[in-house]
């Protein structure tokens, strides 16, 4: 995984059922991405949060997954390790019968606000 233990760490995970889990993730302040995004003003890149969702979906399914389609991904608030040191990544997947694909719905939020809502299609590598 590209960003697990580099950009984020999983502090706790709660499996609600076989297809749904919540990962409490700590955003690491020392990730190298903040050198460039942006110099002197660390902001968590939205695309890193998309990748964090993919990696949580891989942990949930135990499969290597690619992003085939993002139907919609709304970035609803600016995130950073100081704004939201820990976030809940909630992932729900549904295997599409007869295919190697999963529908995914995911959110990133803390007690204060929501940062991301994503709907898409993942495919097993």
């Amino acid at each position, binding site marked *: 995984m*590209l960003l697990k233990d580099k950009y984020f760490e999983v502090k706790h995970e709660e499996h609600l059922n076989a297809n749904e889990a919540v990962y409490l993730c700590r955003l690491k302040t020392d990730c190298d991405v903040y*050198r*460039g*995004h942006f110099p002197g003003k660390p902001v968590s890149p939205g695309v890193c949060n998309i*990748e964090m969702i993919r990696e949580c979906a891989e942990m949930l399914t135990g499969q290597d997954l690619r992003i085939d389609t993002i139907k*919609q*991904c709304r*970035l609803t608030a600016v995130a950073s390790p100081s704004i939201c040191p820990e976030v809940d990544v909630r992932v729900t997947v549904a295997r599409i019968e007869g295919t190697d694909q999963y529908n995914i719905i995911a959110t990133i939020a803390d007690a204060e606000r929501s940062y991301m809502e994503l709907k898409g299609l993942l495919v097993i590598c």
Partner: protein
Amino acid sequence: MLYMDEQIFKLMPQRDPIVMVDAIYDAEGDTAHTGLTVTERNYFIEEDGRMAEPGLIEHIAQSASAFKGHLALLAGQPLPIGYIGEVKKFHCYLRPAVGDTLTTTVTLGAEVNGVTLMTGETRCGDTLVADTQMKIFVE
């Protein structure tokens, strides 16, 4: 060629290690053509030497950001800082490999309350790599 490599830094605030566009070939009206030659120093390069999908999304977003920076520079306005507000109908057809040169067409749509609609399409040679719609929020 309008801008290449570090000349792009005049147009957008992103810096190493997450600079994901290295050329603006041309810009006319609402459309620009940008590029990125994938290297192992790019963000989102996986163990198999291919770029993961979020890298393509960031490449398209930075292409739009750099294009808007170019337009601001021409107009004598301060450099805008753009954030992705929404990604819609993103589709990845293949992950490019280190050494591939990507060419991207970005088309800016209407701007309403600081939010610009855009479409982006990335190719490697003639092969479609990814396409998407986005809303870019400019600060």
